[in-house]
């Protein structure tokens, strides 16, 4: 077989170029830490990794929603705890006021105290997070409770009955607060009306009426605690979902890594292999091309 210089040189150049391009690939794999950076380096891996990344992105957004929701939910929870405490105060006042030993002036003072508690309840339940009133339902640009002497118990309700929600998963929305409407709606009628009646009974010095109102206060307290525990459930659920996202995120990120990241062990051994081939090509080339009849003529 005739082998010309051109064949030798052509083969040499081809092998060297191939080695160099393989070496360049391994080099960028190693230095960037990624095997698949653009689609052409592995179309299937690229697509899969991007789709998983979209899922991660979506779930991270749900996590951000949950974080915001939890902050609001916990604020609402604190306000509800405060409300329960205040209602218990009222119950204490009624018990004392219903006692026969109290006289009209004591009851008048007690009435003032109840009025003060009502004011602080209005203040507490007008709690806002950013621009959002927590107990206003979705009508949250307006203060839910306004003491204007017009509404039941003198307090007008601006809340609607749809609680504010955050989305925590595909198609899953959780209430992050409870509405003012639910809060007011006790088994014994409107919360502020109950308080208003108590205040009125105290001012009227009506001990009999007062003792009949203990049950109403109990109903109110029960209503608030029921709602508080419902909110608590949602908060727990948000916490749980958040943690779940954390753990699936780890799994998904490792999936992505497996798809597109460099396998260092493999890349290094590959580099060694190409290096050896490269060196031998160079060595054999310089020997081969020294061989010429010209040297002997």
């Amino acid at each position: 077989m005739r082998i010309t210089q051109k064949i030798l040189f052509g083969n040499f150049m081809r092998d060297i170029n191939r080695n160099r391009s393989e070496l360049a690939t391994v080099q960028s794999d190693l230095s960037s830490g990624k095997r698949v950076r653009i689609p052409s380096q592995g179309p299937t891996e690229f697509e899969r990794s991007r789709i998983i990344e979209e899922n991660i992105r979506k779930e991270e957004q749900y996590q951000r929603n949950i974080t915001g929701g939890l902050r609001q939910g916990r604020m609402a929870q604190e306000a509800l705890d405060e409300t329960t405490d205040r209602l218990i105060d009222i119950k204490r006042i009624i018990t004392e006021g219903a006692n026969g030993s109290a006289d009209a002036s004591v009851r008048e003072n007690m009435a003032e105290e109840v009025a003060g508690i009502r004011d602080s309840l209005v203040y507490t339940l007008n709690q806002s997070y950013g621009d959002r009133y927590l107990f206003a339902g979705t009508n949250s640009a307006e203060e839910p409770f306004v003491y204007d002497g017009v509404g039941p118990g003198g307090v007008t309700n601006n809340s609607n009955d749809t609680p504010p929600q955050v989305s925590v998963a595909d198609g899953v929305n959780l209430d992050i607060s409870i509405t003012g409407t639910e809060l007011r709606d006790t088994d014994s009628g409107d919360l502020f009306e109950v308080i208003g009646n108590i205040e009125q009974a105290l001012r009227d010095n009506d001990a009999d009426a007062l003792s009949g109102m203990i049950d109403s206060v109990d109903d109110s307290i029960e209503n608030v605690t029921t709602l508080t525990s419902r909110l608590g459930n949602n908060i727990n659920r948000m916490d749980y979902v958040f943690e779940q996202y954390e753990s699936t995120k780890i799994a998904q990120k490792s999936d992505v890594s497996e798809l597109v990241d460099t396998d260092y062990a493999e890349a290094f051994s590959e580099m060694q292999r190409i290096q050896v081939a490269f060196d031998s090509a160079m060595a054999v080339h310089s020997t081969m091309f020294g061989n010429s009849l010209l040297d002997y003529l």
Partner: protein
Amino acid sequence: MKTLFEISKSGLRSAERSLSVTSNNIINADTPGYTRQRVDKESVGMRMTGFHAGLGVNITSITRMRNEMTDVVLNEKRQDMGFLQEQSNVFEQLETSMASDAGGDLDMRIGRVFDLFSELSSDPQDMSVRNSLLTEADQLTSKLGDITRNVDRTSDLVQESASSTIENINQILSDLDTLNSAITKGESSGKPDLASLDLQVKKLEELSGMVDFESQVTEKGSLELRIGGVLVLDEDKASSMRGEIDDVNKTFNVRLDSGKLIEPSGGKLGADLEMYESKIPGIKERLDEVASTLVNEFNTIHSQGFGLEDGTSRNFFDPSLTDASNIKVSDTIRANVGHIAASSIDGEAGNGNIAGQLSDLRNEAIIGGRKMVDYSVDLISTPGRNLSEIRSSLEVRDSEISMLTAQQEREAGVNVDEELSMMIQYQNAYQGAARVMSAAQQMYDTLIGLTR
């Protein structure tokens, strides 16, 4: 006796001629298209009474050592190679304009807009969320615009490349025409024009990278070429072609000066035409589909909702601009992010139902039977997917070509060592012939000496 001089003279001439052929081989060892030449000789003799006498050597011809079949196969592979190479160049450009390793690609931009609608549904009154939403939506629309502009630019470059390839093909065809007349002239005079034949090989090699053709050699030795079945070169003339471009409808016709249309399907030109007429418009179409789907789906839901400011329903994207090149968030929303509709009920500031529905769109198969983000991942991977397919065929082609080239080189290539050894051989032959002449001379001298 006298024949001795004739014999040695023919030996000297043959050695000299052979030496010049070998020298020419050595000098042209790395000239592209050069074919090694060999001197064909035969011994001359005549019948004398009773015996046969040799009368020296005669050079019958100088032959090109070339396998024409290999050339034909090789050129077919080169047409394929030129096609794949050009496609891979264009897809590489397209990939660069659509996908990057830095993130921030179309899929992420779309995902971020959905993210912010999800955030808005949870916190509809937060102005900073609304502002970020506008920023992300702007980034998405400008990303679509950027990609479209880059794809358009690639399309323009491909069109220019096709036009300049046509120029080159015309040039080569006219060169081949000139060579044809030199070759046929040589052929008819019985002295083949070897240099022109080598040049023809080189020109055909160049041409095969550019366009697909079939070649045929006539009895007179002239070359005939057909592109897409249409004759473009024969003994008499070479046709020239020109491109007829309709940049609006993305058509590129190649017409001969005779008025005939030809349809190149291989080589660089074939690749450029396919990219220009179908692949690039295909990608643009899908980009526009993304844009129009975004506009329609978002507007349909958005216009059922209400912003923070008033009870007016609005579109999110400008409904009159539905192409990837011009998609834009509507001006009223750009002027006041409070107009972004999060609520399903007028006046409920804390209602995020519409924003929620918009963010749920990310889970719905609304485009080509797929989710928005999945579809765009598929879209931005398209050039890369094609590229990776082409690259593996390129490797196969490349190794085929290098095998065939080696095959042809074995036949037609110059082995300098071989030529050098032949050089010595011819030198020796020359010396031998000279010695014969000198011996004959001495014999005559002796004879003439007798008469003195």
